[in-house]
């Protein structure tokens, strides 16, 4: 057994999920590939969104993948960090906006 849950080398084996269900894996990878093609949004913009989401869901594989992808696309570290702050702001905001629920409940329970 691995002594850690995550192994960086496993990212390269992502495609192996097809070994146990090729049909669904093919559909997923086909979809994945299409999503990241140039569209109304540029592939560059999508890469930055992916990087921000990767941090939100705290997926180490995705963080490695989209940091590398960003470097390859010429995305600067300043752009990458700004994208992360967007993720952090939404994530922090998601906590704080529940504060209204807390306040509602507090007020309801209080005389």
């Amino acid at each position: 057994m691995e002594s850690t849950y995550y192994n960086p080398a496993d990212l390269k084996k992502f495609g192996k999920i097809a070994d146990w269900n090729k049909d669904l894996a093919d559909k997923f990878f086909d979809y994945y590939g299409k999503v990241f093609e140039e569209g109304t949004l540029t592939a560059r913009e999508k890469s930055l969104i992916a990087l921000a989401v990767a941090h939100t869901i705290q997926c180490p594989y995705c963080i490695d993948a989209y940091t590398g992808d960003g470097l390859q696309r010429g995305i600067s570290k300043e752009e990458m960090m700004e994208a992360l702050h967007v993720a952090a702001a939404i994530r922090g905001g998601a906590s704080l906006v529940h504060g209204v629920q807390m306040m509602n409940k507090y007020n309801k329970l209080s005389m």
Partner: protein
Amino acid sequence: MALKSLLSSHNELSNTKRQLEVLANGIFKNGELPTFSEKLKSCNQFPLQPNKLEVLQINLGYMCNQVCAHCHVDAGPDRKEIMTKETMEQCLNVIRNTGANTLDFTGGAPEMNPNFRWFVDEAAKAGIKDFIVRSNLTIIVSNKKYHDLPEFFSSHNVHVVSSLPYYRKEKTDKQRGDGVFEKSIEALKMLNDVGYGKANSGLKLDLVYNPSGAFLPTNQALLEKDFKKELKDGFDIDFNNLFAITNLPISRFLDYLLISGNYEDYMYALVEAFNPLAVENVMCKNTISVSWDGWLYDCDFNQMLGLKIANTNNHISNYNEDSIQNRNIIVSQHCYGCTAGAGSSCQGTVA
């Protein structure tokens, strides 16, 4: 940026045999990844053989005024290997009879060879019309004696191909040395002033982008658009085309990959990006590389790995084009660098 060459810092990778061992062992020996020969066999492209010879790429010496972190030549001010006038004469004998139509000068900084200008003049007299010089740009502003290089280049309509890893200072200086970006911009302005890169001047100025790290270059056309906009808006600089070149895992870049723990991932990325279409147009198919001391190689990278062409006529002094054209090109795992994605050559992408 490196401060010294691998050679003068006694790095074990300055021994080319050690580099070839690294490339042959590990993930390629244990079967995790196919060797380049195996890959070529799997798409019926082995052995690799040359097409019509078009380019003689002549390395005028390993001396350079810069010590770039990724340099596959391990060039620098401490390298003393310089092509002599005698070897140049031997090259000229070949040039007078060759089927190749282009002379491509590289180094080090080819302009630092004291006989560089004489050689270009003589080659022009021998009938060569297409010249390429791989200029690091900063050489032009490094010393007063080089300030008129733009005029010299233009007098022979030399096609100038210059490295500029990025259109911003930080990444460029990190790879090529402090102050290199500003000096490069100054040199580009001098080239622009004599007409290089300007519409309808007929004087071609191309830039070379290579990634500043363990990742592959992105789409050449997209990068070119960014470079053109940033260099025009920021510095009023014009150029013709941008070549996106992949860093090959040899010499200083191999050293960096090993030290930074990126070697295996980088080789995986290269192998995964293998493009059989790129194989048809790799530079070794139409080029012969000549070293400072006259030996012949399939490409500049094989030269740096000490892999002479597989032919008994392997020196400029006993050059035999018919015989050489029947050779098999020598390959190893570094060749994956030229076949990844859209491919990579001294002229940028190839597929």
